[in-house]
């Protein structure tokens, strides 16, 4: 399973970022989300949505094996084991592993699905 994004439908509203942050941290803060929207304006006028593809590069480079898979098959960073070396951030080809304000360990998508619930434009979906 992984998260998919159809960038052509995105209107850049960031509800997915808010949902992600609130789901994991009970905080309203778009800087604490494990996906990203990159706007390209004024030209060519489109949004680019970046999501975790569960490629596993992060787990491969983790020096302390702190990135196991959960029961949905999603890689996640175990904060107990993570030494905050940030190797996974550099390795992520989608740039969707984030260092978030107020926390040493980075954070990535665990397929909780809340971003999908809050997207009004049907940009996001979880599938095989």
């Amino acid at each position, binding site marked *: 399973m992984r998260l998919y994004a159809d960038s*052509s*439908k995105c*209107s*850049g*509203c*960031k*509800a997915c970022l*808010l*949902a992600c942050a*609130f789901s994991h941290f*009970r*905080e*309203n*803060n*778009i*800087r*604490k989300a494990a996906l990203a929207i*990159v*706007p390209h*304006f*004024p*030209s*060519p*006028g*489109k*949004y680019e949505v970046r999501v975790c593809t569960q490629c596993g590069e992060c787990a491969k480079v983790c020096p302390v094996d702190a990135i196991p898979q959960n029961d949905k098959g999603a890689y996640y960073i175990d904060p107990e084991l993570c030494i905050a070396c940030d190797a996974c951030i550099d390795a992520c080809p989608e740039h969707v592993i984030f260092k978030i*304000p107020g926390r040493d360990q980075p954070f990535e998508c665990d397929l909780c699905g809340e971003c999908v*619930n*809050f*997207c*009004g*434009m049907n940009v996001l979906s979880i599938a095989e």
Partner: protein
Amino acid sequence: MNGYAGTILRVNLTTSEIRKEPLDEKVARDFLGGRGLGIYYLWTEVPKGADPLGPENKLVASTGPLSGLLVPGAGKMDWACKSPLTGGYAGASVGGHLTAEIKYAGYDAIIFEGISPKPVYLFIDDDRVELRDASDLWGKGSITTEEILKKRLGEEFQIATIGPGGENLVKYACITHDFGRQAGRGGVGAVMGAKKVKAVAVRGSKTIPVADPERFWELAHAMFRACKEAEGLGPWQRYGTTIVTSWCDEVGALPTRNFQQGSFEQGPNLYGQVMRERIVITDKGCFACPSPCGKYSYTKKHGVFVEGPEYETIALVGSNCALGDIEDVAYGNYLCDELGIDSISAGNAVAFAMECYERGLLTPEDTGGLDLRFGNAQAAFALLEKIARREGLGNLLAEGVKVASQRIGQGSEEFAVQVKGMEQSGYETHNATAMLLAYMTADVGAHHNRAWAITYDLQVGRDRVAPEKVARVILLQHIRPLFDSMGACRLQWVELGIDVTQYAPMMAAVTGIERSWEDLLKISERTWNLTRMYWIREVEGFGRTWDYPAPRFYKHPSTGGPTKGQLTPFEAVQQLLDMYYEQRGWDKNGIPTPEKLAELGLTELVR
């Protein structure tokens, strides 16, 4: 303070002093935020009689308690000041992503004071706040400036800018954000220009606290679910505000040739469906909005990108100037955005000049050779440039149609379509008494944002003059500004039919203060009445006559379309006002009674 950042940022441009002050809890309780905070600070801090373009005026940019949160449409904020256009209150609402970023940076409002000796922009990165030199940006367009600042500072920064219109103190200059969203009305951009502030750039990383996270989470789910399941979602997402263009044209509410009639023979070329197919390239939403009305377009004919056009711009720059090609309207929209002038007032100004020209009140000599016939797109574009740069006839039109008509005279006052000095937005009101009353009594001038009552007119009979109609207008005047005070968009309620009372438990989950929907409406009524008192304080002789509509609607019958031959008799105008004042608890001259002020807890404040 839950729901709030808890801090006001005060920027004195004269001295370059930047202060952070705690947000007064009682003020937040009594006026909520956004629209309410704006008038509170104007009332308490801007001295009576201040010159709108002088150092005493203040520009107040306020977020609301819902701004930046996981609430549908929580991307709204309000810019308030004493209006250079009307001499009374100006409050302009804008969406986008600026309000969220201001709160994430740790501020509920930014108050600009004084006048900077040189062009500056305000840089905010969380606690770091600086006034930076903007000499290299001065003179540049709004969109261009935003692009430069994003490249310089980073994509995460949210930017608000003025264009040449604001720099040149065009009385209806706007503030532009996110490549095409505007705090449009009342000249907030001229006040920013007078203060020599070219832009604001802000980024934040802080969390906005809510009182009851679990209750908030549950309500957020319910509200987004309701939006996503709403019947109207699909069409609204596809067309946004342009969904009403065809409806307005068909019922005779689409301003045409300076509001002479409400139906345009080339109207079908401007409909939302045509626009979507011909020029729209992506949907562009405000913060946390499940139903983005923003449509981002590219016009091949003119080779520019533009957000929109929105319905209002289609109505005022399009049909009202008799431009019958959506690509020309898109280009007119682009010019207004880049030049930093409000497309509603600017469209009115051009249409007014066109009518003067066709009636022979303005000659080719007056227009600098422009052939200002209705429908001449090239002449309209040239005139928009002249307005923003205050050249020739543009210099006069930059003052607004009220002042322009007073100078031109010869009866042109009767077709200067404005109330209190503010040009009327996109609904033709020869025969739509609730909408007409909404324009007459809106607290900024003739703007629909405070009460969009045109559908109600069609529902209950256009020419009816009855207490229910007046009550409807007053209710809308409390609901809509309440959204502007909470910092959320009203369109999920208006267009998707979301139960408006859901916002009361949401506000309670956010702020920790239990208030009913009626309690919140009472706060909105307090704000409305304080704003009325502001007009009375600032405008000599203010009263009933200031609520009169443009004579166009009671003297000159509509010239075509479904309303052909119709008007609203002046006696009906007077009846509407009598009923309105009575229901509001105001006297015959439209002045709030001491009893009403006491009921709203305003006695001390207005003393």
